[in-house]
């Protein structure tokens, strides 16, 4: 595939690994904040190619992992209503709520359908005028423009049977929260390249300046990630703390203006609870007041007040994994009590969670 295969080349990857080794004189911890990048690092064993002084940490870059249990409970409750068709991305199916998940909701009679795109859910709403189509809108800034457009279009078409159950999260507040922790080990960040195609690079400037950390916008193929690590190490070794774009083939500094405009039209910034981490101010998106009629929690009278945190027990350390305080392999339950087949928490359930990625691509049995 064009623009994919070229960035998986053996020679390029090893050349970058050697360049990183030549440039490294001290220990550095570099964190990426995107499940897709975590997955690629595990799948291609990238950390193995790096000098031992460079440690890769994984941040809360998996929107599936950080969706609170209450949101799943709401989705499950909606799916049980006979008039509702609950549409969701496939990777949300097995994420546990307080009791059960969407897959069991489907098995017990709920109309739960996996879709590839919000536009598929919108099409369903057009085709099923007697049903209420609810779309579980989860994701980072990359996915918000598509969801916004679906709602905007629903209003234009006068659809009264389409709504969103929103659990969107924003990346920079999470990065800032991690950097605010005095015990943090992170020296530099790889910013999620696809989020930046929408948002551009500007919002990272204040973070880089305030916390004096280099932030390198990075892609997803192995060569892209090694490029990002290389540029980050060069900055760290040179005492610089700048925002750098290593994914210029798709990221413009100004991002995608149209996409951002639509997001600003349809959504508004809210506080958001991150599963395993807790509440982070101004870290989520909810529907803007002008679009409240498309908010499923309003339409169906779901609890609006913040609820007590419902977390899975059993010794799950997802919260520490999500902020890079421990690696999945350091968790005592990893690979023993906790596996993808019997997950204790969200980071093992989601295919992009750090624990699931480490388990799936582990070195030896």
């Amino acid at each position, binding site marked *: *595939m*064009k*623009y*994919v295969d*070229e960035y998986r*080349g053996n*020679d*390029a990857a090893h*050349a*970058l690994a*050697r*360049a990183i080794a*030549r440039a490294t004189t001290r220990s550095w911890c570099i964190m990426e904040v*995107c*499940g*897709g*990048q975590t997955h690629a690092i595990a799948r291609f064993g990238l950390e193995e190619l790096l000098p031992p002084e460079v440690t890769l940490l994984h941040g809360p*870059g*998996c*929107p*599936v992992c950080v969706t609170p249990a209450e949101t799943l409970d709401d989705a499950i409750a909606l799916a049980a209503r006979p008039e509702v068709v609950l549409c969701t*991305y496939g*990777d949300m199916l097995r994420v546990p709520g307080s009791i059960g998940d969407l897959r069991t909701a489907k098995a017990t009679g709920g109309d739960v359908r996996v879709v*590839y*795109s*919000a*536009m*598929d859910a919108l099409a369903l709403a057009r085709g099923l005028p007697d049903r209420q189509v609810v779309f579980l809108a*989860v*994701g*980072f800034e*990359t*996915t918000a*423009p*598509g969801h916004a*457009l679906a709602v905007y*279009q629903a209003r*234009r078409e006068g659809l009264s049977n389409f709504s969103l159950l929103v659990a969107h999260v924003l990346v920079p507040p999470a990065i800032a929260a991690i950097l605010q922790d005095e015990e943090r080990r992170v020296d530099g960040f790889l910013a*999620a390249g*696809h*989020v930046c*195609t*929408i948002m551009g690079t500007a919002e990272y400037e204040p973070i880089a300046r305030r916390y004096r950390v280099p932030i390198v916008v990075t892609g*997803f193929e192995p*060569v892209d990630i090694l*490029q990002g690590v290389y540029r980050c190490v060069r900055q760290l070794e040179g005492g610089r703390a700048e925002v750098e774009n290593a994914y*210029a*083939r*798709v*990221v*413009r500094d100004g991002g*995608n203006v*149209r*996409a951002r405009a*639509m997001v600003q039209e349809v959504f508004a910034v809210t506080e958001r609870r991150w599963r395993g981490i807790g509440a982070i101010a101004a870290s989520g998106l909810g529907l803007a007041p002008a679009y409240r009629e498309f908010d499923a929690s309003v339409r169906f009278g779901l609890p609006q007040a913040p609820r007590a945190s419902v977390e899975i027990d059993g010794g799950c350390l997802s919260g520490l994994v999500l902020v890079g305080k421990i690696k999945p392999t350091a968790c005592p339950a990893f690979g023993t009590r906790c596996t993808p087949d019997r997950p204790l928490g969200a980071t093992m359930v989601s295919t*992009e969670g750090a624990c699931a990625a480490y388990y799936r691509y582990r070195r030896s049995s």
Partner: protein
Amino acid sequence: MCLAVPGEIVDVVEGDLRTGRVSFGGVTKQVCLAYVPEAGPGDYVLVHAGFAIAQVSEAHARETIEELSRLEGEGA
């Protein structure tokens, strides 16, 4: 969830909502092109969850590949 894949626009239908067929290594799919109004048939776009979110810059891609080739030449 961050899954975004580059593909080549095969054709475009302008209208209410700009859509088109995009080919990914031979497999084509309908994609919403509303967020890449400048991209047309033959251009490559990055597609995420049914939406094209950016156009791929051939120039920048080439620059990256050239940079990599230079690196490969050094200290092998």
